[in-house]
């Protein structure tokens, strides 16, 4: 059986071509294209079950039969390579008979489940039977039936994962799920077992299908063999409508469809909307199941105002009036600088811009930031970190890169979409992948070299690569001039030793970076969230300059949230890029005088009672700010705190006024993904309960303060478009940065480095309210390697006390086979475990000790 690698069109143009005739039309395609792809490219419908554009062909279903002249039998077009002079018929009588026969065979054992099957109405098998089959059966024997031993339900459904139900009777063995799992996601928790008539798809023995992309398996299933529990027995597909939406949980802005029903005002599920530039049709489970927090019943329903120490529901008018009055009061008595504003970068462009204008014009203070979970942000704008963050990036370019480096990034947890792109480049184009991280990550399995360096030595590793390149003379000597003096240590060997990595690995990476034709160098959250991010960014800037990476690829720090890039481009930071600032100054008619404060500085000022009022929109700093106690202390000192959120959170609990915020699915908005691509998300339903979109709240506030923000919606949109059009990319400097290094000694008592981030199935503070995602992971854990677990004498599931200087949490242990150092990982998404209380904002590496809790 031929297995064709899908060729990318860019290189295919240079490749030799073949010319063949399909249904009387001549077509020229690159060599290696299959007949099926050639036909589909011409717009000829060829039915398939097992073929998927993003997977390798297997020819399992035989549905794509075509007649090729001079071939003795019908040919399986998805596995037949197009050849010069082929004459193909896709619609001859023989082909029609062949398809009929295939359908007949497939249906011979198919149960009569259409009435109960959730796939009914969007089922490929139904559609193709209707189109190509016959409406009567010749078989009168009993159908094969899989049952699950003692757990015998009427429809023989088996739950094989937190959100997946398998019905093997309906399976037509196209193997799409198994192949996608393996080829696209690199997961092996689903497989095909047994042979012949009793072949079945099932979860791997003892495993459940819970990988972070498992929802895609359901979506690509051509029949109802794999179904989702969140869609199970809820509604028929033809009753729903689709809203074209955008994923609000990841920064890629993967395109999604929200399936909604207008009369009930309910969302029923979320599926992918293939956009090859972004997502290849695969979406992460957090995207797929995250919507269900929108439909949660415990959402904030009305505004709450603290009266005599208790939050009581009030009307919107009262709440808005109160907020406007108090803000004006504080403004009048203490000065506008005494008001700080934090906004969640998951909100849409117009909300962000309105917030910016509200803070900088209506209030007149420069205290605006969207980076809530990064400690110790730089105090000015033109730093290496700002330059690195502003660099352009293209997801599709990952596909064509031959060298891909992910540095300081747990891609699976932070950037699932780019994680899949890396896998795709590796699987289909044999790209070299390197991972450089302070702890082992999931994509290490595709990495040519997986470098795990000692936590806290990030810049040293980067320096080591530079030094190795200079020492090995891999780069132009002129180019390298001056670098060696500016960085520490002096030799690659020394650097490698400091970082605790193999020098050979570093050399391989250096060579690949130097030789690579197109290099993608990705920098992730482990760098961004690190208190010492500036020297690391400087080291990366040096690396970029040394290897000339931007000239032959891309170097980018990946934005983390759905609209982080938008917030940056709209100037939601204390120090917007110069052009952005100029545009904003013109629109705002001036710029606040006071010193621009970052999140961090704002908190410090709050602590000093120099800021007396806070406005927090859609964010939960108490859960996400990497120093919980500090954040709490600061926010509690405020005279007046307004928090807008969809749920009651830690932060709303200490607020004076809580305003219910509508979720992204309840209003239409534009989002800028990490590439800088602006995408529109349609509203699926009306805002639930009495929640309102952030934009509406901010505009009402401004109106209540007698300073309306915009004259019209058109003006608002024009302003946003104008600011977005500004050039926000900062140029790389013409010289190398100095990179110094100060290796902090580890404490004696606290030895285990701890990393806090998002669980692969969660993002931010809202997804824990999604019942579907809670089925995957519903509580915090401490993830550790097998070796560390053995050393600490704990097993998976044991409760342990994780203690740091700052605080402690008690969480269960999760043992991961891919972690192989002492570092542990804790997810920050769960309010039940206050994981960020372990962290201290000034510390570069937080270390903990772990002890077992006696039963």
């Amino acid at each position, binding site marked *: 059986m031929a297995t064709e690698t899908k060729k990318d069109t860019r290189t295919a143009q240079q490749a030799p071509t073949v010319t063949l005739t399909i249904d009387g039309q001549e077509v020229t395609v690159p060599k290696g294209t299959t007949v099926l792809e050639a036909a589909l490219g011409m717009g000829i419908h060829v039915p398939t079950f097992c073929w998927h554009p993003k997977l390798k062909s297997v020819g399992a279903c035989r549905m794509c039969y075509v007649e090729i002249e001079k071939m003795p039998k019908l040919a399986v077009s998805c596995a037949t390579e197009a050849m010069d002079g082929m004459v193909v018929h896709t619609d001859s009588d023989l082909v029609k008979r062949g398809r009929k026969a295939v359908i007949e065979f497939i249906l011979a054992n198919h149960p009569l489940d259409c009435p*109960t099957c959730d796939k009914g109405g969007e089922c490929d098998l139904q559609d193709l039977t209707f189109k190509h089959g016959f409406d009567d059966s010749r078989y009168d024997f009993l159908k094969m039936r899989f049952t699950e031993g003692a757990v015998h339900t009427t429809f023989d459904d088996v739950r094989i994962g937190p959100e997946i139900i398998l019905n093997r009777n309906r399976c037509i063995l196209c193997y799409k799920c198994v192949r996608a799992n393996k080829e696209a996601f690199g997961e092996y928790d689903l497989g095909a077992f047994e042979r012949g008539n009793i072949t079945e798809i099932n979860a791997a023995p003892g495993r459940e299908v819970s990988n972070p992309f498992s929802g895609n398996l359901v979506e690509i299933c051509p029949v109802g063999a794999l179904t989702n529990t969140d869609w199970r027995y809820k509604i028929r597909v033809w009753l729903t409508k689709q809203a074209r939406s955008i994923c609000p949980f990841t920064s890629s802005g993967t395109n999604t469809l929200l399936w909604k029903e207008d009369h009930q005002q309910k969302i029923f599920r979320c599926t992918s909307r293939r956009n090859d530039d972004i997502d290849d049709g695969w979406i992460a489970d957090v995207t797929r199941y995250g919507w269900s927090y929108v439909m949660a019943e415990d959402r904030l329903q009305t505004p709450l105002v603290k009266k005599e120490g208790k939050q009581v529901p009030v009307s919107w008018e009262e709440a808005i009036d109160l907020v406007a009055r108090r803000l004006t009061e504080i403004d009048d008595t203490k000065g506008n600088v005494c008001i700080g504003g934090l906004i969640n970068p998951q909100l849409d462009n117009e909300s962000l811009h309105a917030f910016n204008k509200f803070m900088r014009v209506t209030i007149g203070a420069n205290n605006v930031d969207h980076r809530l979970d990064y400690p110790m942000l730089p105090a000015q704008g033109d730093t290496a970190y700002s330059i690195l963050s502003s660099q352009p990036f293209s997801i599709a370019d990952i596909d064509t890169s031959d060298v891909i480096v992910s540095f300081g990034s747990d891609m699976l947890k932070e950037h699932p979409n780019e994680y899949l792109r890396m896998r795709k480049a590796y699987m289909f184009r044999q790209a070299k992948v390197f991972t450089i991280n302070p702890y082992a990550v999931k994509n290490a399995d595709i990495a040519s070299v997986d470098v795990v360096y000692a936590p806290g030595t990030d810049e040293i590793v980067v320096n080591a690569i530079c030094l190795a390149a200079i020492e090995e003379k891999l780069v132009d000597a002129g180019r390298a001039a001056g670098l060696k003096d500016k960085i520490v240590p002096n030799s690659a060997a020394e650097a490698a030793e400091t970082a605790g990595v193999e020098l050979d690995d570093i050399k391989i990476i250096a060579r690949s970076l130097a030789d690579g034709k197109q290099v993608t160098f990705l920098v992730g959250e482990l760098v961004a969230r690190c208190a010492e991010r500036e020297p690391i960014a400087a080291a990366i800037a040096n690396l970029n300059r040394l290897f000339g990476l931007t000239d032959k690829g891309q170097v980018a720090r990946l934005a983390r949230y759905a609209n982080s890039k938008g917030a940056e481009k709209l100037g939601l930071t204390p120090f917007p890029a110069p052009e952005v600032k100029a545009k904003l100054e013109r629109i705002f008619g001036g710029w606040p005088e006071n010193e621009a404060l970052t999140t961090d500085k704002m908190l410090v000022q709050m602590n000093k009672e120099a800021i007396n009022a806070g406005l927090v929109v859609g964010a939960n700093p108490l859960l996400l700010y990497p120093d919980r106690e500090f954040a709490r202390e600061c926010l509690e000192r405020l005279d007046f705190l307004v928090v807008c959120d969809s749920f009651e959170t830690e932060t709303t609990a200490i607020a004076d006024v809580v305003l219910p915020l509508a979720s992204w699915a309840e209003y239409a908005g534009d989002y800028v993904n990490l590439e800088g691509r602006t995408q529109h998300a349609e509203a699926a339903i009306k805002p639930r309960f009495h929640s309102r979109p952030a934009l509406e709240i901010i505009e009402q506030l401004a109106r209540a303060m007698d300073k309306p923000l915009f004259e019209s919606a058109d003006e608002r949109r024009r302003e946003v478009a104008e600011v977005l059009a500004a050039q926000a990319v900062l140029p790389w400097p013409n010289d190398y940065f100095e990179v110094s290094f100060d290796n902090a000694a580890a404490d004696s008592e606290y030895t285990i480095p701890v990393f806090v981030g998002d669980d692969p199935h969660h993002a931010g503070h809202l997804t824990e309210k999604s019942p579907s995602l809670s089925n995957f992971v519903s509580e915090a854990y401490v993830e550790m390697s097998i070796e560390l677990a053995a050393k600490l004498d704990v097993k998976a599931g044991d409760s342990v006390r994780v203690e740091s200087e700052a605080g402690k949490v008690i969480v269960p242990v999760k043992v991961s086979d891919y972690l192989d150092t002492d570092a542990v990982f804790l997810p920050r998404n769960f309010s039940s475990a206050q994981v960020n209380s372990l962290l201290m904002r000034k510390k570069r590496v937080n270390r903990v000790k772990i002890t077992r809790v006696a039963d």
Partner: protein
Amino acid sequence: MKEIFKALGNVVIKMPQGFYVTFKHLFKKPVTLDYPRKKKPMAPRYRGKHYLERYDDGTERCVCCGLCAAACPADAIYMEPEETEKGERKARVYEINLLRCIFCGFCEEACPEEAIFLGQEYEFSADDRNKFIWTKEDMLVPHPRKDNPFKKILRRVRKVYGTPEATR
């Protein structure tokens, strides 16, 4: 002149013949029924008030597949499925809005589980709009059922894994 004679003939001869026809009917049995004291039996196919069938063991036949609602030209049917403890699909809500229903019988024709039928009852006027929304409870036949089903049922088991010839 001829016209006048003909008219005269009509009045004298033909019209009394007509009166005789009317007069004859005085002695005929009336064709009308003393409704509502007496009722006419409806045809077996009569499309009256809907009822939901059960299997012989009393479980509901309806699996809430939505075909009846899809076939309904008046969009009178609303349903919401749910999962039973055994993992089966069944209707949690099944409502027919009589005020919309046009009694075309498409639901009966569409039903792939032989669950919904249109019965013989036609007297269901009410004084409140809400009473015209029939719920599942209103329509399910009692179990054990008191009378024979009006309409023939072709499949008596819940799940078939073959044709009748094969199961025989």
